């Protein structure tokens, strides 16, 4: 792997140091796991003058629960999340999504925060964080702020982080009893980027949350579908009507990974199966988390 261009490499130990470095070096690229940043550097897709490696910042690798909120630090990898009993207890659909990210080797390095900072439309963390109504905690020159994930994704590879800001964690209000599901369409069982991602949360009282990934410029919630489902069981909605709502919600593209037609077809199939799995899991049944419904 040859990176041809020069850049300065900085390694802060504290958040204030990191913010100072980001303030001093406009356009600096933050490095955590590096599974996106390093290939981009190799391919000259980005040419930052400075790379700020945050791996030395204490506490950034923590997953903890306090005051009814689950907090995921910026250095928490997908493997960390998979190994976390706390995550399994409170956000099983996010853990289910974590299992589908790339390969074991990549998951050992790739961070959940990095995944949503890269903000590709197919990011696996996007749909589950949307249904868990997570927020992105940010520190910057103007102080700290909390950005709801619903407002985080602005476009392909674009998110709400401003110049000089650093993500300090993801917070998720504990959802209480629920059944969740993340279904991912991939071309084989090995590592792949989602061609469609569907996250569903079934909450008591026939309350559903639905989010899609890879079938629009950003991962998104589907309120019209949620409204149609509200109050009934997953089997109660007229399948044709549900399909029509899916078609309205998504705006898939044709690319080398999948055609628009297949993405549309699979969005319908995956929503049906994810709803059924989430509802069954809420009732203590359904397939175990981690077993893909497609």
């Amino acid at each position, binding site marked *: 792997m*040859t*990176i*041809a261009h020069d850049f300065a490499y900085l390694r802060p130990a504290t958040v204030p140091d990191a913010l100072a470095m980001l303030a001093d070096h406009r356009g600096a690229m933050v490095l955590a796991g590096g599974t996106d940043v390093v290939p981009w550097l190799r391919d000259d897709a980005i040419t930052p003058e400075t790379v700020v490696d945050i791996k030395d910042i204490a506490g950034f690798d923590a997953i903890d629960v306090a005051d009814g909120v689950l907090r995921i630090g910026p250095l928490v990898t997908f493997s960390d999340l998979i190994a976390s009993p706390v995550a399994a207890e409170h956000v099983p659909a996010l853990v289910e999504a974590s299992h589908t990210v790339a390969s074991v080797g990549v998951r050992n390095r790739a961070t959940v925060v990095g995944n949503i900072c890269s903000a590709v439309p197919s990011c696996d963390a996007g749909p589950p964080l949307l249904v868990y109504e997570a927020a992105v905690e940010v520190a910057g020159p103007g102080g700290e702020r909390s950005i709801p994930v619903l407002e985080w994704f602005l476009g392909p590879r674009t998110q709400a982080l401003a110049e000089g800001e650093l993500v300090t964690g993801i917070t998720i209000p504990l959802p209480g009893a629920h059944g969740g599901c993340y279904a991912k369409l991939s071309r*084989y069982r*090995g590592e792949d*980027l989602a061609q469609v991602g569907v996250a569903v949360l079934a909450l008591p009282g026939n309350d559903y949350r639905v989010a899609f990934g890879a079938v629009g410029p950003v991962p998104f919630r589907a309120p019209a579908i949620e409204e149609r489902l509200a109050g009934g069981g997953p089997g109660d909605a007229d399948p044709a009507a549900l399909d029509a709502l899916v078609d309205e919600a998504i705006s898939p593209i044709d690319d080398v990974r*999948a055609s628009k037609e*297949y993405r549309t077809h*699979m969005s319908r199939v995956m929503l049906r199966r994810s709803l059924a799995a989430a509802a069954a899991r809420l009732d203590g049944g359904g397939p175990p988390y981690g077993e893909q419904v*497609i």
Partner: protein
Amino acid sequence: MTDTYVGKADEANAMETLGVIGKGTPRIDGLDKLTGAAEYVDDMDFGPALLHAAVVESPYGYARIKGIDASKAEALPGVVKVVTGKDFPYTFGMYMKDRYVFAQDVVRFAGEQVAAVIARDARTAKKAASLVEVDYEVMEPLLDPMKALADDAVLIHPDLEDYEHVPWFFPKAGTNIAHWRKTRRGDLEAGFAEADVILEDEYTVPRYAHCAIEPHVVVARLDKAHRLTLWTASQSPYTQRDVFAQALAPLGLSHKDIRVVTPYVGGGFGGKAGVSMEIIGAALATVVPGRPVKVRWTREQEFTNTYQRQGVRARIRLGAKKDGTITALEHDLYWDAGAYVEYGANVVNAAGLSATGPYRVPAVKIDSLCVYTNLPPGGPYRGFGYSEFHFGLESHITRMAQELGMDPVEFRKKNAIVEGDTLAYGEAMNPSGLIEAIDKTAAAIDWGVEETSDDPTKAIGKGLCLFWKAPAMPPNASSASFLKFNEDGSMNITVSGMELGQGYLTVMAQVASEILAVPPEKIRVETPDTDRNPYEWQTVASHVTWSCGNAVAAAALEAREKIYKVVHDARGYEEGSLYLEDEKVKCDTDPDFELPLAEFVVGGIMMPDGTYRGGPIVASGKFMPEFTSALSDPETSQGGHPNVHYTVGAAGVVIEVDRDTGKIHVKKAALAADVGRAINPVLIEGQITGGLLQGLATVLYEDMRFDAQGRLLNPTFTDYKIPTSKDVPDQIIPIIIETPQPDGPFGARGVGEHTMIAAAPVIGDAVADALGVRLKEMPITAERVALAVAGMDD
């Protein structure tokens, strides 16, 4: 001196008890590979003098080079030299000299080498390469072979008629047809007239990449004594030397001046046969004499600028009688051969001779056309054209059986080729256990037993297809070996076939071990160095076990003769009464006599007077199939004997497919191959497993996609999918059939490539069986299946 092993196979076969042949002898390279001791080119340390090269590639599929400005690159500190096509106005190629060391005035595919930067480190080279400014006049690329065949198509190679080529190619000057193989036998019109059913259709197969784990790499050094040494990751050290010598002859280099060293190779699959990117290293070394220079491909370059498996459009017309007898076959194959066909045209040729498949077909018309396009050069890939044409042909055979109302397996058995049947080019079929292979495969997948899935969204389907393949080689492709005994009775054998992971070195050791009664662990077989090891054409065509095995057997038999002669001279026993056992010479007529090899194979045998007889036992062996000929009537292919033998077999699968998602899960895959004699059954099971997986990947996941400029859209594993351990079938059943090949070592014939050939059509058949949809274009992805089931396909 044993001239050739032909005719001696019976002698080897007649050995009553076989010691190591037929046993799963552990790989002699296994420990080195497991521990990391095995060295590959990129591991080799060339010291601080090593220079690195980066290549400037064409971003266009077809463009005229108006100018190259390298001044910015040359000005970068650390840059040693920038070279362009002006420095090397030479063509090269294996079967046809149509490929350029560097593009001259025209680039013919996206990714073609236009210039190269040599620098003191890889980073500087990469940076400098991005500073080379090339001014292109972009032209409309020809990406579809059918468009390239149009009367008014631009000629991608206007100088086609001037290119040197082998005598069995027939380029059509003034067209984009680089070679046209025509095979004709019997009365075609009468054959179709006799048929009760005639079925005609088209099938499409895209391009594929080899995806060896190790990318291509070459280190080259021209020393001050005008000696050019190359360390390459290659299947073909001697062929590379030959191609380098021919291409670089204008620089005063000849065969004796060129040395090619090939250590272990991390996978080849045909992609490292012949010469592709290595020509760049050979050329660059000549401009920096005294210093080694390294060219190492990235994964992206591995996809775009080595060889690709060619795409093909097939049209098949098949006639059969109500009783299931095939009467006639018309098979047109239009190959997307790419920008240069120096190797790929022989793939077209091989398919054109054998596109009947393993069937008895009385009337045949095959047209196999090698068509230039502005896509990367096509070339050898495991299967060498056979995987490509079997997809259409085997799909068609099943459909014909269904049209006739016959069981597809019964239809195949009725028409399966057997020993003595006449091949499409007029020669007789070699011994074959095809019927046994069909029966055993059918039994392994419970053919004829319908199965249903427990999951209502899923359907189960079965498929069973046949395959065959012959090595595609020049008629004089040959192998040689040197063998020498050491003081302790151990042996060093040198050959120039390549250990590609198939276990070749182990098999060569087993052959010598069997004849000389020395255990394999006392035999080292070394990877090639053309200064030290004797000639081998290439490690391709699934021929080295057969061909080089014969050469090693010949050397071992020569050594045995020498051993017997020494014992005869020193001890007086009749040579015919001596035999070898447990590293000793023994005698039929004197049970008390035994002489350990270690006591005399170097130092000789002492006589009563203190003098010695004998001396170092050294031997050589060679093999050339002296019965083959590539000369035949260009209009019919009759009159020659192009192929040495066919290896045949059958493959079957049981799949479970999800009607909604189209996802295919292979529950069981069985494959039977007639290997003649399984010298090492464990290695053959490895070939069957690996080949099936590679074949299943080509039908289930892989394909190369190009944009309108001919640029590859998926040149990484992000979007070009090869199977992982999670994608392996639940069960793989390898079945070994042994109908001896009379001219093979201990009766063995080749099996390496064959194991992937039937994978694509069996999946097509199984999907059709499960869901009632017939897909005629590869790959058969989940997407294509789901859209076909939903009626959403176009």
